């Protein structure tokens, strides 16, 4: 994997989360059998009023997989793709010709759930190994909706007592095809927010 852009690479939170993100991509790469490149890896604070743009155009239809995690740390993970890209990913996983998937049926939802499961588990395993404490993912929840409505899910869970989200934003693409997706990791409490004084 190649990192083209690596910004704000400071603080243990970012280092840990970056390792986890790389591991998550390795899992996705294995699943779709394509090399993946990272085009953006950015850890930053996002104001509540700006959160709606986290996945791009707020009204664009996005297919995502949501997981929460708990244990030594608590937070949220969202793996998201533009709808047409998600369909291409599903075709790849199922060994179908491109353009076969046109909607999310039971099988397609299952594929997306598994993709989220792999990304989330690989991410959290890396973190868990790094800190020597257990972190557990929830079952994956595939979701297809407006980008902003999906972000709403996380915002409402994290902003009860604050106005800022701490976000790890990873944008990636497969080497030979124009496949791009985003992995958002939003820690709420625990080891992954321990260095908030330095900025995550």
């Amino acid at each position, binding site marked *: 994997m190649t990192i083209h852009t690596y910004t704000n690479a400071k603080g243990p939170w970012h280092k840990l989360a970056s390792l986890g993100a790389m591991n998550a991509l390795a899992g996705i790469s294995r699943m779709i059998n394509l090399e993946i490149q990272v085009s953006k890896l950015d850890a930053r604070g996002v104001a509540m009023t700006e959160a709606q743009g986290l996945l791009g155009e707020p009204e664009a239809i996005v297919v995502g997989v949501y997981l929460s995690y708990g244990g030594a740390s608590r937070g949220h993970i969202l793996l998201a793709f533009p709808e047409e890209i998600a369909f291409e990913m599903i075709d790849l996983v199922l060994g179908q010709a491109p353009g076969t998937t046109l909607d999310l049926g039971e099988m397609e939802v299952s594929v997306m759930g598994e993709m989220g499961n792999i990304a989330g588990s690989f991410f959290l395993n890396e973190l868990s190994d790094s800190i020597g404490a257990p972190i557990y993912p929830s079952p994956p929840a595939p979701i297809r909706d407006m980008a902003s*409505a999906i972000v709403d899910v996380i915002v409402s869970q994290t902003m009860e007592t604050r106005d800022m989200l701490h976000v790890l934003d990873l944008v990636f693409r497969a080497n030979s095809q124009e496949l791009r997706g985003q992995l958002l990791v939003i820690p709420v409490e625990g080891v992954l927010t321990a260095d908030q004084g330095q900025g995550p």
Partner: protein
Amino acid sequence: MNQVVNALKSEVVGLGEFHVSEDTSTMLVCIGLGSCVGVCLYDARIRLAGMAHVVLPASRGTAMTDTHDAKYADIGVPRLVEKMRSLGAVSSRITAKICGGASMLVSPGVSDLFNTGERNVTAVVQALERERIRVVARDVGQHHGRTVKLFVATGAVVVLSANKTLLEL
């Protein structure tokens, strides 16, 4: 209809904000509501519109900043009503239309954690009742996102859902 809509200015009401407008060439818009609730208030006599983008049901004593005046239903709704009153609106004339409050996650294992949408709707309705404002229409709940537009000139409210259905409240 589309030509009329395209000619209007959009004033986007962001997460946790409220806007009030008497500019009849404007529509107030909440984009991509998930569990959040869009509260649309209108005083037809003076053509004054107000919209709040409520994120959470209750402040539980949390201090609110000036920029996020409508983050919590229990504080945001009264503040929106107060602002409209200060511009000449009368509670008995104000009508409310609400939308959003979806339950976005329905998968086993996580759905129980997220009834924020339902709690938001309940909190907004209760806050409006305390202000003695009638809810005359609603499009709430279910499992999909919505964009809501409130036309200042007429008080009409249009809801576009993620599944591309268009509904006028």
